[in-house]
């Protein structure tokens, strides 16, 4: 079972909030002694997802948590927006697909950088993405 230890909620409304979020993710990762490479992967994944949230969802909120399972510690981040939602999640998860003008690496790339990746979306209601990275994952 995964238990949540510390929790923080960060609203994302402006582009500069992205920098703030990255710093908070870094603090959480350092707190559980995550190595530099894993930290970088986690922050990069968070950066991709928060950009999606800004671009397609018009902002939203991010829930940051330190979680524990047995002797493992990790950082779990949930991104929730109330945007238009994603019509075809399988397509959105495909490398190189983008409904915008980007490279289409955001979602599939972020998934590769973390240990656990969950996405759910309802058209007209919004999208929620949860990622988890273990300190030694």
């Amino acid at each position, binding site marked *: 079972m995964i238990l949540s230890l510390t929790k923080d909620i960060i609203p994302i409304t402006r582009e500069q909030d*992205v*920098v703030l979020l990255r710093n908070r993710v870094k603090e959480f990762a350092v707190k559980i002694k995550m190595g530099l490479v894993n930290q*970088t992967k986690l922050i*990069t994944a968070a*950066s*991709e997802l928060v950009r999606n949230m800004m671009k397609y969802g018009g902002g939203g909120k991010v829930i940051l948590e330190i979680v524990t399972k047995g002797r493992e510690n990790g950082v779990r981040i949930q991104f929730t927006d109330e945007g238009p939602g994603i019509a075809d999640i399988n397509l959105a998860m495909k490398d190189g697909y983008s409904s915008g003008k*980007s*490279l289409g690496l955001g979602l599939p*790339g972020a998934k590769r*950088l973390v240990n656990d990746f969950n996405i759910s979306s309802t058209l007209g209601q919004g999208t929620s993405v949860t990622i988890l990275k273990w300190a030694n994952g």
Partner: protein
Amino acid sequence: MDKIPILRMGPFLLVTIQVDLYDRLALDLESDLIQMVNKTNAAGVLIDISAVSIVDSFMGRILGNIASMSKIMDAETVVVGMQPAVAITLIELGLPLKGVHTALNVEKGMEWLKARTNDIESVNDEDDLIVD
């Protein structure tokens, strides 16, 4: 408003990114740099990212854009000082930065630029100056 300074050194432009980039800042840097290449007739652009702790797909795309835009403006671009963790992350993300020349540090980057632009005479022989 934040701005990333662009320094002029002989025929080259130097950019050291010391702050956390958000998208607007990166886009401004892209357009400022291309304007400067045009204004100063620069033969090369060196971008130092040794202080940058993360490069995501957007930032990677900007670096690629700067390199290709400079190229069609007749200037070479080299990106130097990438941290190992950033390199590992970029590859796993699926962004191998094709078309962007990289060097380990500023010194090696400058050497490469000089070698690359060797046969091009310095167009402007004014003293080094700082422009924003």
